[in-house]
């Protein structure tokens, strides 16, 4: 039996198709790499004494779990509520400043959580900047920002772009025909959105929300600064207060269990429906709705998260920088860190998407229990604290891949293990919108499966690839714990420069590096965001008189 025969034997998808061997082999390799942290945690936990059982019991109180799930639920729900309208307005409506806002609405993703948290505290704490502004109205003290409210605010600002990016990718490839048909049959714009558009967006919303939930689960910097205790902050306390790897590993395994619960939960929201055009043919771009006098309302909806999540933090950073400079604070040289950040993030984005592709294709085109397991297993790293993943790769590097240890390659590998789900989620939701019959047609015309994937599938999932690439790029730009532990000795990036200054309360230096991070991240983000737009879509003519509520799509003219 041939190699490919061995690999594909016993692997038949629900609809009876057999995946090509190269696809299975590369997807399995990716999944194995993604599971390194779990293997490490099991190895480290074995041989731990009996005391760990007590510790799990003590730490895993109902209150801690309750708070963790409450935060995840709140952040996910609010992120969806914020992101879906922003996505629709920036893709499907002709609002003023659309391109600028499209890019700016993604950028809060690049702010490291401790920068976002510190700027939020500076602004909205009981005696913060906002209170200073309000003091002319006699406001002496603002309500406490700390706790669930503040932690939710910080995490929503940092995570709504996940949903935004995946939903935008989906909106761009969605066939406007269905919506137009709904309108033609007399559905109003809102009814059309609820009955047609939203259900079609479900895989994209789910993919983005899963990232939001897992990120919230893994976040440490944001929640501790906002003084909200979650399971991860509890684990990290064990890490910081005692350097007990066994204990931290045992507790992290509990985190793996929570991540699996989230993954299974998301699995239930996935339907078996089709999300692609039922007939073969090119999807034409949707025409943009003309919002008429509601245009500025649309700008306000998109602008509010940009204001709170980007403009105000940048304002605080500029203030810190100016104050530091006035007080003669020296700045650190940032040219090389900026170059390193850019280089390594682009490398991570390209390689991670390359690794994500076979997993996504296998999961969508060859649905089976096994392909599903492979896809889901890549998500676990995203729900673990960066330190845990980094230490697992120290373990892997020292014991298995010695020549790669402390090279840029192991660092990029770590980014891949951490951020694969961002690439897979975006590709997956894009792939669902491509009718498999297009690929079948290409195969029927005599192209090999490899050629079909490279010349048909990949071009068609580009909107998802751009969205996923943007996410991996931005996530890598700000990643800290793995960068600190795994980068080659002496390798500096913008995020390590920010940390270096922030951990010693040098706010001017922190601000200089953080502002440069936003600037350097902005250019590729602009490219990735605007590139997916393709040629300028035609703007719909108004379907109703100017006084009427906004029209959705100008159908049937």
């Amino acid at each position: 039996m041939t190699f490919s025969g061995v690999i594909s034997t016993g692997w038949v998808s629900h609809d009876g198709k057999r995946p090509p061997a190269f696809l299975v082999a590369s997807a399995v390799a990716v999944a194995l790499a993604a599971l390194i942290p779990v293997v490490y945690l099991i190895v480290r936990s074995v041989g731990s004494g009996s005391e760990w059982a007590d510790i799990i019991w003590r730490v895993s109180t109902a209150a801690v779990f309750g708070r963790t799930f409450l935060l995840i639920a709140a952040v996910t729900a609010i992120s969806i509520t914020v992101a879906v309208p922003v996505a629709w307005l920036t893709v499907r409506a002709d609002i003023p400043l659309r391109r600028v806002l499209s890019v700016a609405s993604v950028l809060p993703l690049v702010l490291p959580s401790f920068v976002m948290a510190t700027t939020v505290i500076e602004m909205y704490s009981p005696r913060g900047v906002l209170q200073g502004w309000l003091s002319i109205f006699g406001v002496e003290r603002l309500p406490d920002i700390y706790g669930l409210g503040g932690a939710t605010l910080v995490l929503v600002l940092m995570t709504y772009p996940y949903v935004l990016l995946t939903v935008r990718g989906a909106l761009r490839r969605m066939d406007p025909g269905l919506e137009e048909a709904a309108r033609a049959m007399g559905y109003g714009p809102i009814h059309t959105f609820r009955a047609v558009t939203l259900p079609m967006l479900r895989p994209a919303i789910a993919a983005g929300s899963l990232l939001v939930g897992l990120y919230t689960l893994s976040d440490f910097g944001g929640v501790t600064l906002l003084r909200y205790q979650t399971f991860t902050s509890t684990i990290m306390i064990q890490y910081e207060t005692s350097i007990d790897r066994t204990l931290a590993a045992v507790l992290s395994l509990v985190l793996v269990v929570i991540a699996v619960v989230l993954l299974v939960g998301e699995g239930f929201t996935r339907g078996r429906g089709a999300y692609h055009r039922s007939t073969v043919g090119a999807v034409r771009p949707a025409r943009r709705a003309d919002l008429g006098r509601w245009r500025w309302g649309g700008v306000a909806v998109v602008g509010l998260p940009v204001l709170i999540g980007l403009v105000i933090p940048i304002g605080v950073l500029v203030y810190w920088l100016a104050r530091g400079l006035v007080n003669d604070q020296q700045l650190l040289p940032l040219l090389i860190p900026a170059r390193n950040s850019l280089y390594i993030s682009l490398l991570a984005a390209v390689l991670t998407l390359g690794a994500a592709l076979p997993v996504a294709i296998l999961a969508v085109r060859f649905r089976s229990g096994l392909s599903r397991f492979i896809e889901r297993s890549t998500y676990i790293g995203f729900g673990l604290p960066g330190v845990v993943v980094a230490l697992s790769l120290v373990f892997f590097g020292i014991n298995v891949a010695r020549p790669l240890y402390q090279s840029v390659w192991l660092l990029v590998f770590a980014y891949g293990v951490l951020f694969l789900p961002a690439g897979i989620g975006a590709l997956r939701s894009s792939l669902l919108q491509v009718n498999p019959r297009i690929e079948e047609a290409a195969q029927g015309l005599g192209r090999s499966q490899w050629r079909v994937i490279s010349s048909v599938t990949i071009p068609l999932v580009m909107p998802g690839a751009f969205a996923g690439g943007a996410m991996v790029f931005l996530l890598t730009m700000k990643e800290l714990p793995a960068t600190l532990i795994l980068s080659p000795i002496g390798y500096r990036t913008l995020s390590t420069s920010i940390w270096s200054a922030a951990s010693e309360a040098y706010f001017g230096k922190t601000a200089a590096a953080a502002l440069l991070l936003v600037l350097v991240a902005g250019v590729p983000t602009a490219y990735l965001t605007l590139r997916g737009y393709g040629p300028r879509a035609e703007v719909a003519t108004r379907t109703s008189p100017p006084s009427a509520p906004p029209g959705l799509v100008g159908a049937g003219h």
Partner: protein
Amino acid sequence: MWNRVASLWRASVVTAAVCLPVIAGVACGAGADKPGPLVIYSGRSESLIGPLIADFEELTGAEVRVNYGSTGPLAATLLEEGKNTPADVFFAQDPGGLGAIDTMLSELPSDVLSAVPEWAKDPEGRWIGTSGRARVIVYNTDVLSEAELPDSIEDFAKPEWKGRIGWPPTNSSLLAMITAMRQEWGEDRTRDWLKGIIANEPKTYAKNTPTVAAVAAGEIDVGFVNHYYLHRFIAEEGESFAARNYYTRAADPGSVVLVAGVGILEGSDNKELAIQFIKFLLSVSGQQFFASQTYEFPLNDQVQPNDLLPALEDVTKPSIDLGDLTDLAGTQALMREVGALP
């Protein structure tokens, strides 16, 4: 465009397969024969000690490569790397980090150890303090004056301080202070103090920095922190920063002086340069750097502290040897018992 991206994907797979061994081979080949650069794992950040490292390189002509990180994760990394660690020197924020890996450290020569007082080094000579950091009470100057503050940290357990205190209970220096209390006061008295503090509903902060910021912002009246953060805030924000440090008048653990310290890894093949580096840190110029740039207390008695600080002998510190503050687990257990830690 599409074909380009498609080929990019393929190219990346090929690149990974072809380049990795090549690059790895180059990396492996280097540094096998003569001792390479001095490799330091530093829990102290670059913004603090970067210039000092540059001075050392200039002075000796040696090449130094530093892996900056947080003390805890770096210690965990060292444990994970074990004998294979590329590190020659571990420069830690606190004795706790050094204590966690002290079995991996080699004994320092006696001429190095003699440079600092007895209380500021490992009794077994495996690590040595390089600069002192005092525990202080930082207070809001709009609400309090130093005269209104009690002589001893013990008094903050009284009900009059309810709702006015902030602390970072997970911070290693704070835990070291509690360990010093157990050493000095005994278990029961420390427990009573902690219970009193918890009854006063202290606000818990993630770290020292946000605690100091919260004091200045008036969120809390007093905070239990290390002394030098205040001076960095003042340097950054100006003299109007509304907080100052108070070194307890009573010689109690509230003003115990801790150290940042350094040790040499057992497996280092660069021990001579490593010793030279430690000697440099303890030299007059090295110690002057800490005094002037990081606002820490020099441990070499030929160097005076920063003008902003009291003299080290005027800090009424209790007679505690840092080598005795090893029972971190006992402190954590006590903190959990009273509900200060989860």
